């Protein structure tokens, strides 16, 4: 009897110890990693967003892995999920992020300010063959803060007019070149009884900031003045808000204030709108016959001129950087160097319509052969007129977007735009004081 009791006690002790050990094991961290001399055999985690360039990287990845011996794990996410993951992981100084694909206009300042991105200035300028200077000046500027490079550009995009050639031809209408013409064309092509609209654009306040920015610049204003003050309290800015709101409200589909980029593009893809004004990087999706009923019937035109001329945005939409907490910085850099090489960026542009940030890609007829000719022409005309940002260049970008996007909603709903712009300008001024 005593024997049994003792055995029971031992079992109890063992069980309790095992439970605790499992728990402790669960709590222990991964202590793997560290830079060895060679990168061969290193495993790196690459977080990236779904899209054209990513498809090319996925396809060509075995080439890189066999050449370097680095094992790459790609984690493909949606844009917002990607942002959220960075915040969660980097706030806890997680070491399991190596290469970070991110949106420079949205995150470069914040990530650099937080110390989340590795300064790669020496690495980018240290390889002559890879050629950092082949990246356009504005795209290099987009990933640079105070002369320190934090990322390498992957993709650029420009604000353009996508138009439905059949709808334009049916009414014999010419491509609009000015804001007045744009409004007249939108009016002429709107037929609410058949449910087709002249123009579709983003209307959801935060998302619409980028597509509205080209209108703001073309009316002679900017988010922030040269002195660093709010630029949206001016008469020019109010006129731009008013124009954008009237255009979308009168000649766009209903429910404009809830349209983000994907939904607005969906309406154009279904042939329900004659024009869609947004980034040219969407061309691949619009020409994809599996999801677009207007594939093969789409024309591309340059952004129309406003009172201050045609000033569309021309920005670097995606870039890749190395996490400051990564234990595999050398291997991560090798991956970035390969993924932003002429070969990969050219392949992404010719196979996936992903606009390259390299100047040489646009001059290479083998690359542009598969790319819509009108878009190549637009690229060359934009280089002298376009503006290099499509949202306020601040640290807390989303907060700023909500502030400067509020008058867009008021304009879309037909409210008092001047008052809304004034109020937003005051809030923006307050915000700018804290965003340092």
């Amino acid at each position, binding site marked *: 009897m005593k024997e049994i009791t003792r055995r029971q006690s031992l079992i109890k002790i063992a069980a309790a110890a095992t439970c*605790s050990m499992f728990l402790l094991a669960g709590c222990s961290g991964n202590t793997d990693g560290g830079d060895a001399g060679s990168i061969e055999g290193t495993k790196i985690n690459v977080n990236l967003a779904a899209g054209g360039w990513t498809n090319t990287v996925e396809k060509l990845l075995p080439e890189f892995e066999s050449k370097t011996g680095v094992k790459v794990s790609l984690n493909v996410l949606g844009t917002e999920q990607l942002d959220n993951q960075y*915040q969660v992981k980097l706030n806890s100084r997680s070491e399991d992020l190596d290469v970070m694909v991110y949106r420079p206009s949205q995150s470069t300042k914040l990530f650099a300010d937080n*110390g989340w991105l590795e300064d790669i200035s020496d690495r980018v300028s240290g390889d002559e063959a890879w050629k950092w200077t082949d990246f356009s000046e504005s795209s290099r500027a987009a990933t640079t803060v105070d002369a320190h490079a934090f990322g390498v550009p992957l993709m650029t995009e420009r604000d353009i007019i996508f138009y439905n050639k059949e709808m334009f031809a049916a009414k014999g209408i010419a491509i609009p070149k000015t804001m007045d013409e744009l409004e007249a064309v939108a009016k002429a092509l709107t037929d609410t009884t058949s449910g087709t609209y002249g123009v579709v654009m983003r209307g959801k*306040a935060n998302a619409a900031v980028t597509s509205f920015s080209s209108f703001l610049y073309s009316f002679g204003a900017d988010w922030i003045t040269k002195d660093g003050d709010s630029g949206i309290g001016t008469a020019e800015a109010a006129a731009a808000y008013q124009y954008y709101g009237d255009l979308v409200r009168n000649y766009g589909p*209903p429910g404009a204030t809830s349209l983000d980029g994907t939904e607005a593009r969906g*309406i154009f893809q279904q042939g*329900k709108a004659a024009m869609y004004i947004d980034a040219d990087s969407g061309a691949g999706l619009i020409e994809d016959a599996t999801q677009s009923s207007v594939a093969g019937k789409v024309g591309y035109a340059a952004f129309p001129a406003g009172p201050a001329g045609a000033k569309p945005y021309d920005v670097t939409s995606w870039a890749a950087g190395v996490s400051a907490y990564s234990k595999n910085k050398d291997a991560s850099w090798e991956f970035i160097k390969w993924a932003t090489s002429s070969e990969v960026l050219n392949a992404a542009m010719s196979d996936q319509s992903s606009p390259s940030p390299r100047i040489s890609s646009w001059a290479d007829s083998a690359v542009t052969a598969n790319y819509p000719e009108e878009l190549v022409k637009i690229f060359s005309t934009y280089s002298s007129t376009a503006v290099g940002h499509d949202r306020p260049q601040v640290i*807390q970008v989303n907060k700023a977007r909500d502030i400067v996007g509020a008058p867009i*909603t008021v304009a879309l709903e037909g409210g008092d735009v001047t008052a809304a712009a004034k109020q937003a300008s005051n809030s923006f001024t307050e915000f700018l004081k804290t965003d340092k």
Partner: protein
Amino acid sequence: MALQLSDKSISTKAKLEGWVDRNLKFIFTLPALLLVLALIIYPLIYTIQLALTDASRSTTRAKNFIGLENFVTLLHDTERFWPAVGRTVYFTGAGLIIETVCALGLALLLRKAFRGQGIVRTAILLPLVATPVAVGMMWMLIFQPSIGFANVFIEWFGIPAQGWLSDPGQTLNTLIFIDVWQWTPMMALILLAGLASIPEEPEEAALVDGASWLQRHIYVTIPMLKPAIFAAILLRAIDSLKTFDILYATKGAGGGSNHEAETLNVLAYSYSFDYQDYGIASAVLILFLILICGAVALVTVASKAGAK
């Protein structure tokens, strides 16, 4: 000497065994306790600590202790915070009332055995097992004003097209409709289980006494079902207050251009993930926790009062 040692080791062993026997309940609950500490208590304390600072941009940066300033700011914020409280209460309250009434009706209908009962019971459970984000996406397509089916459907009856989720005035009610569609079956199931445990004699007695169908239900069945009704309301209220997935899937961060679907949960998300203002986001969550605790206390008190 050896004998002494052996005696000592035996006595130590006996002591350990005795200690283990005495504290067995604590030893076995220790892993669970540690898990609770790690997963609930620690985040809660960390959230309270963050709420008392001006943490912004990154939680790893230096932050200043600012006391209750975040709470004061929020309690004075009539632009985002209080409307979000209003929406949270409205969304939960309206949803709960409709769900309770519908679930009660559904449970009473399904109570009596009928042919095909199994199929019907399975069919009404389908919305419950669907992934909330997929549900959100599905309804978003149905309610799309230009290409969705909802407007086609109501136009068959001569009703003009509506904005649904894209009309700020209709958004919250449309979302309540989706919530009711998804969660009424769960409440109906709880009530059905409650109905199964009610004895039949009182109802039969009422029938013999000449009570009508309505009288039997109002004066006999429903009062006896009260504990189940309160249990269902309590469970659903807690869950409904915390709703995030459907709101986020249909309206995104910020709850729309006019923040028309911004409940406290969505507001906390906006402050933390959109604005990187972790201090004030934590304060929203603490106030939200207080609201949930208050609501639970209210339902519990009402349930006890109802039981008397």
